[in-house]
């Protein structure tokens, strides 16, 4: 019972304790004290009517006790602190405030004043409840480095006084962007790891989707819905994306019967929901592109004209050479490899994506299809030199053999 409650509710209790105690470390200690007390008392005295409320108030009293015992705090500090706890305690049981606490926690962990890697680490630690060791493993970072990152971030929250607030409507779009960026980064690190031997790392993607669902439940903004849709649609292809031998399988070569139809359906419904709301943006449009792929029976039968149109919409909002590159690949599917190749070569000629492996891989692939095998070989070799990821390296080598 207590174990199950820890899994389902410990993050909510923590989020409220951080608000009540105004301190991450004190709140974590209080959380563990409260669960320890539950393990002792509940078997003896029975489970309280509202276990979560019990945990919050027990944690809060344990923290006040700890403060009183602490010799470092003089009478004045203690008095001020106790008053604050009492005053702020009034609202804590209000259901809305408690749900807001989880949102506060997300926005605080993803505050742009924290270093990007610290935002990711702190979110996984505090919002998802992953251990420092688990996060370190997932990001192939030494655990002490990661622990240090979290300690520094918490110190900055305390010393620079980063507030425990959901941003005001005027600040919301920008601050929400930062939250979405963290969630998508966690997802991508799980879906397409930047280094290492595996094609995908399921644990991180799962955490990102859980975070995305939580965010949509708490704050159903178009872009939050769009990001969740995008992640679910990518996730639906996970099984088809890797061959039995662990090799990468490109979208157009995937066995579409392996796509998870339940995830596809959920993703498609979310895309429609996102696009019907004001302020939809780059995540919703990317999800829409993914949804067009999801409903096509094969690569050839895909509505490439619609995909090119969506990339145009995306490029208007977020002009970037990477989006141009993706659009070029869609143009090649719609109008033939020569049309796409002309765009890719124009991008490369500007020097924008000179070190971007996908740009060289795309040029190589389009050259191969256009029968320009010598040029294909040169570009595959360039892509090979730039990749750091083992399954991708094997894929490029296999392609290289096909043009040799």
């Amino acid at each position: 019972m207590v174990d199950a409650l820890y899994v389902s509710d410990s993050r909510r209790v923590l989020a409220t304790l951080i608000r009540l105690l105004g301190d991450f470390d004190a709140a974590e200690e209080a959380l563990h004290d409260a669960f320890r007390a539950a393990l002792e008392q509940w078997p003896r005295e029975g489970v309280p009517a509202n276990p979560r409320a019990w945990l919050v108030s027990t944690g809060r009293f344990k923290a006040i006790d700890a403060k009183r015992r602490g010799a470092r705090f003089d009478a004045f500090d203690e008095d001020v602190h106790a008053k604050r706890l009492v005053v702020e305690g009034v609202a804590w049981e209000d259901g809305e405030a408690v749900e807001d606490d989880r949102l506060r926690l997300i926005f605080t962990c993803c505050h742009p004043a924290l270093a990007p890697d610290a935002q990711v680490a702190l979110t996984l630690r505090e919002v998802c409840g992953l251990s420092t060791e688990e996060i370190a493993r997932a990001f192939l970072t030494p655990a002490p480095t990661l622990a240090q990152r979290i300690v520094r971030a918490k110190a900055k929250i305390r010393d620079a006084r980063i507030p425990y607030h959901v941003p005001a409507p005027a600040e919301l779009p920008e601050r929400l962007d930062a939250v979405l960026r963290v969630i998508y980064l966690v997802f991508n690190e799980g879906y397409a790891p930047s280094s290492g031997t595996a094609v995908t790392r399921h644990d991180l993607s799962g955490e990102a989707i859980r975070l995305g669902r939580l965010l949509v439940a708490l704050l159903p903004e178009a872009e939050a819905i769009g990001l969740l849709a995008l992640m679910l649609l990518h996730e639906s292809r996970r099984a088809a994306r890797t061959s039995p031998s662990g090799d990468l399988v490109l979208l157009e070569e995937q066995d579409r019967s392996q796509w998870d139809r339940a995830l596809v359906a959920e993703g498609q419904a979310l895309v429609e929901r996102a696009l019907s709301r004001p302020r939809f943006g780059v995540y919703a449009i990317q999800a829409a592109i993914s949804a067009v792929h999801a409903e096509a029976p094969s690569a050839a039968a895909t509505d490439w004209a619609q995909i090119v149109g969506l990339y145009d919409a995306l490029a208007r909002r977020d002009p970037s050479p990477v989006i141009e590159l993706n659009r070029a690949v869609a143009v090649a599917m719609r109008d033939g490899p020569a049309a796409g190749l002309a765009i890719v070569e124009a991008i490369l000629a500007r020097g924008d994506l000179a070190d971007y492996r996908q740009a060289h891989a795309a040029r190589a692939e389009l050259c191969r299809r256009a029968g320009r095998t010598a040029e294909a070989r040169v570009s595959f070799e360039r892509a090979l030199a730039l990749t750091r990821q083992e399954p991708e390296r094997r894929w490029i080598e296999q392609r290289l053999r096909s043009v040799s």
Partner: protein
Amino acid sequence: MKYLCLVYLEDRKLHAVPDHECAASGAKLRADGMLLVAEALQPVETATTVRVRNGRLSVTDGPFAETKEQLAGFYLIEARDLNEAIQVASRIPPAREGSVEVRPVRELVP
């Protein structure tokens, strides 16, 4: 809580924002109760660095940081939290020419 907003500008941009605009925005921030004190600084060439080592005074020319931007001025502000401090910093005119570093003030331990 007090925050010190340090304004950094490249040499060539030291006078990019006219003085009267800085004075006006400072007066506005003061009227809003957020500004405690603000000053612009003479260029870094006028700076002198003072150190005391083993009781001996050492005085040298300038700071030696090899950065393109130099400290051009400062605003000591009063803000509820970092979010409010960031809002105030965004109202400092040179923020659009250079950068503003926002640092919480540490109370000395008696």
